[in-house]
């Protein structure tokens, strides 16, 4: 019988991807130019509007708000829509049937675009959760989850209806994508709303950091990598008209990739307060991830083996080959950066930014373009409008990426080296933070230029596709298919998965390896012995009966539910092993001797402003256990002044950050100076902060921090504080009992006290405000709440906790008890 595929859905997704891609990249270029020239949001806007807009900086265009818009637009709107396009197109053909439901496809498409519009509106307004790549506020999170479920139903329903008994490797990757993203997204977005647009995550401090980067790292893995690998497996052999290099490589690298990737999340938190066992797992699994990632690259590049001549003639192959090469480069760089010693230098610098752009521009962007150029002629039944324009796009994009990445390597390594350089006498650091920022001005200009080139290239692509579409008319593909008899597919029950010895053997090895991590003294050696025994047994069983293992996998491919369940188990293990123990270990005891002081209502209000403005985009609050960090940000004479676990225990969400374009703020604050604890004396005083928010360069020449004029206009939201504090109490923060009125009164009292220390404060345009008028004006404004928060940063009380026996689920405590219990020198952390 003849079937007609639904090509309207992938066509729409492709157009959406191109449109949002342009938007996302443009926002990226704007954000990059703001880092190069702080005037980009300010004087520059005055100039291009011929003075119609007079501003020192528009709040909704400020870097802290644009950055999440850029990252989310590129990840979820550009790559997301591109992946949906490829998945809808190829799944139908690999299943030899039309997508199960046109209605669900339609809801998926329009729902997803509506969510993106929601993001474009909310981020510039400062509505954010400030969890990286999960910044969307809770109503949009729910929408994402619903639309994702609709996508999943539509996809799995199509698999169920398929007329092709066996699932091709591309589909395995799509399956892994759908189930894993659902798991990650839901867990990382567990939160309690305080209003329609604001919420607190249910995890705080360390727990939030761990869950966030389990999510953040695997958003890269399962949103930007696995769907694109699936797309590579379909579109590359199609375009090259060559067989895929190796089927068995597909199997090994697929299972290894999905199992190992999940464990690597903690490599985003190396050398921080994150418990060392998690850091160790993060590093070691990242190293193990190298080979599985390169398996994908090999299967891509070697498929082209013998067909390299196509590189010269076919822009599609050119884009694919370069994209896969960038994948290889980025997945080599990833494990390298995950080595703790390398990470000392690279973390918090632009090297990380360069790394993600190798992936986003090189791998995702070039693969997207290759797929668009291949699909467009088929979507509109015509020829590609201009091959030479596509070639031009390729070269512009390539030069753009190389400039971008090289600039970021230079910036990252230069800054990393400068930050750790000691003075001649070896008694202090040679450079101040601002020196390192000034040293990388030129790489920043080149980054902006490289990014702009890439955007121009992509605009050429958009134009080419538009012209192609106009030269043809939309068509839907058709195929002759023989309906598949029911018993030829999906005949295995779930039990069958665990009945085969291959699965049993592998599970035993994994189980004892995990047991080895947690087992108490004595048990650990037994577990290690069992790991070795079961590994040997597994290898022997495999050697003896390769055929049966291979047949089992072939049968698995004819049964989509068991395959999906097995894939889910593979991706669930890593997260469970890392997160569940971290949640179980007694939070009140796991603080390394320092317990964070509770925020006053005004300080909390200030913190929520900090979170809303996206300050974490440039400032960390984490002094790593490294010499340059402790020297630069710790207090003189306190040798163990790295950030301890308990110091951020009440932070919902955590603000450890991932990039330092400005200095770390973990110890910006200081002790209280009055009995009522309303005033504090931190590294800088209130007036310094006041002037610095007004004009950072006045106090820190060469700084590229934007001014925040709206802090001096906008009022602090005192009314919402009781609701917010009530939610934090539910989350376990021991706020003192206060009535609603007391909370508001307390906040206003502290605001007035701080405002009273600024009698000579000068606000441009408000010269008439003096004395009590000035004080009352200031007390209402965001600036005072921000100052309150700045002065509180890093406040803690010392807590001595005797420990009788180690927590079962804390390998570091186990180690401590095993090796250091009787050594008084090492017990006093």
């Amino acid at each position: 019988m003849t079937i007609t595929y639904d090509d309207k859905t992938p066509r729409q997704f492709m157009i959406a991807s191109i449109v949002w891609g342009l938007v996302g990249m443009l926002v990226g270029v704007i954000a990059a130019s703001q880092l190069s020239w702080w005037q980009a949001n300010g004087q520059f806007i005055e100039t291009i509007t011929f003075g119609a807009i007079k501003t020192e900086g528009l709040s909704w265009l400020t870097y802290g708000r644009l950055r999440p818009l850029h990252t989310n637009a590129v990840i979820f709107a550009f790559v997301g829509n591109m992946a949906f396009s490829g998945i809808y197109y190829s799944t139908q053909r690999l299943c030899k049937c039309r997508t199960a439901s046109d209605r669900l496809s339609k809801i998926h498409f329009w729902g997803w675009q509506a969510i993106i519009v929601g993001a474009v509106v909310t981020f510039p307004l400062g509505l954010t959760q400030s969890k990286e790549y999960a910044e969307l506020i809770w109503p949009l999170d729910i929408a994402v989850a619903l639309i994702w479920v609709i996508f999943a139903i539509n996809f799995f329903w199509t698999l169920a209806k398929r007329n092709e008994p066996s699932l091709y490797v591309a589909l395995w990757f799509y399956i892994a994508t759908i189930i894993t993203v659902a798991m990650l997204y839901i867990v990382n977005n567990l939160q309690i709303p305080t209003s329609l647009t604001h919420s607190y995550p249910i995890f705080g401090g360390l727990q939030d950091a761990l869950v966030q980067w389990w999510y953040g790292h695997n958003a890269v893995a399962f949103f930007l990598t696995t769907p694109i690998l699936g797309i590579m497996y379909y579109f590359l052999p199609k375009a090259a008209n060559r067989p895929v290099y190796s089927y068995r490589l597909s199997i090994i690298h697929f299972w290894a990739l999905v199992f190992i990737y999940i464990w690597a999340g903690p490599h985003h938190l190396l050398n921080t307060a994150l418990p060392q066992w998690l850091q160790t797992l993060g590093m070691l699994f990242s190293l193990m991830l190298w080979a599985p990632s390169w398996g994908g690259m090999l299967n891509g590049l070697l498929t082209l083996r013998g067909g390299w001549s196509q590189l010269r003639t076919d822009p599609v192959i050119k884009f694919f080959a370069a994209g896969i090469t960038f994948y290889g480069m980025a997945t080599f760089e990833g494990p390298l950066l995950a080595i703790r010693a390398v990470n000392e230098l690279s973390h918090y610098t632009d090297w990380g930014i360069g790394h993600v752009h190798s992936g986003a521009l090189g791998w995702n962007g070039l693969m997207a373009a290759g797929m668009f150029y291949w699909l467009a002629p088929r979507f509109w039944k015509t020829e590609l409008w201009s091959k030479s324009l596509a070639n031009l796009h390729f070269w512009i994009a390539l030069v753009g990426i190389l400039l971008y990445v090289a600039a970021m390597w230079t910036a990252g390594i230069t800054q990393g080296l400068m930050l750790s350089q000691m003075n001649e006498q070896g008694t202090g650091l040679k450079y101040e933070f601002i020196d390192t920022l000034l040293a990388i001005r030129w790489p920043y200009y080149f980054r902006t230029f490289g990014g702009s080139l890439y955007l121009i290239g992509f605009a050429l692509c958009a134009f080419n596709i538009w012209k192609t579409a106009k030269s043809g008319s939309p068509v839907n593909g058709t195929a002759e298919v023989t309906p598949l008899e029911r018993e030829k597919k999906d005949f295995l029950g779930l039990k069958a998965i665990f009945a085969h010895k291959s699965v049993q053997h592998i599970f035993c090895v994994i189980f004892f390896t995990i047991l080895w991590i947690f087992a108490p003294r004595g048990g650990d050696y037994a577990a290690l012995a069992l790991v070795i025994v079961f590994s040997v047994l597994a290898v022997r069983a495999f050697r003896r009966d390769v055929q049966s293992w291979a047949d089992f996998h072939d049968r698995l491919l004819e049964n989509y539910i068991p395959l999906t369940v097995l894939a889910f188990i593979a991706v669930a293990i890593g997260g469970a092993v890392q997160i569940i123990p971290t949640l179980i270990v007694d939070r009140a005891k796991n603080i390394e001797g320092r317990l964070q002081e509770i925020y006053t209502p005004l300080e909390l209000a200030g913190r929520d402003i900090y979170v809303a403005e996206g300050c974490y985009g440039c400032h960390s609050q984490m002094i790593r256990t490294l010499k340059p960090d402790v020297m630069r940000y710790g207090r003189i004479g306190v040798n163990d002044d790295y950030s301890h676990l308990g110091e951020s225990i009440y932070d919902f969400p955590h603000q450890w950050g991932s990039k330092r374009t400005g200095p770390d703020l973990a110890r910006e604050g200081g002790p209280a100076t009055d009995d009522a604890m309303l005033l504090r004396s931190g590294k800088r005083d209130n007036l310094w902060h006041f002037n610095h928010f007004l004009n950072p360069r006045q106090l820190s020449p060469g700084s590229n921090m934007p001014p925040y004029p709206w802090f001096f206009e906008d009022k602090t939201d005192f009314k919402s504080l009781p609701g917010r504090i009530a939610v934090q109490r539910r989350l376990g923060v021991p706020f003192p009992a206060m009535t609603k009125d007391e909370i508001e009164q307390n906040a206003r009292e502290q605001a007035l006290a701080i405002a009273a220390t600024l009698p000579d404060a000068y606000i441009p345009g408000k010269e008439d405000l003096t004395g009590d008028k000035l004080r009352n004006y200031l007390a209402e404004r965001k600036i005072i709440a921000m100052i309150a928060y700045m002065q509180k940063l890093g406040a803690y009380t010392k807590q001595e906790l005797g420990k009788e026996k180690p927590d079962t689920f804390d390998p570091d405590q186990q180690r401590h008890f095993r090796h250091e219990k009787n050594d008084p020198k090492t017990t006093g952390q």
Partner: protein
Amino acid sequence: MNQEKEQQEHRRADFASKKGEVVLRKHEYDGIQEFDQKLPNWWLLTFYGAIVFYLIYWFVYYQAGLIKTDQQAVTEIMAEIQEKRADALEKTLDSLSDKILVHEWATDASIVAEGEALYMKQCFACHGPNLDAPNKLGLSLVDGEWKYGDKPKEIFKLINEGSPADSKGMAPTGAKMVPWGGTYSPKQIAQLVAFIISKNPKDFAKF
């Protein structure tokens, strides 16, 4: 075209039947074919190598306890630096006297220039480019008042250690100066003192 050629060269089968044979898999998916090439040895080696490294690393750290924790390591390093700093400070202070600072350092144009360069990087933000603290973030350094002692070595101490712990700070903000001994070396602090003296020759003429 290409595929036809490959088909002739390779046997169609699900699996290789003898060692080293490369088959073209029987099954096609929407026209896509798959070889079943052997996994490259160097690739397998990196994979196995990483797994073995995992076992060894975990054993050395957790089982054998051979490596210090990060916290121990960095605390020890900081203690060493602290000692070095104290030594350097002692040496610098021993070699300096109020007299030397006023009559040798503060009169040496190159030393004063170095001090000025340092001053213009950080200090000026609170004490003003002309040392008169116009924005009232810090105390004036040219008003003849030396709140925490008027001896050059007392000024040295103040820069090095920050405002004394019992100080109430500056009214009305309660601002206190942070210690700069972590940022600047003793020599640099002496240069700063020299620069300040050079701007207040009358105040220090008595030494």
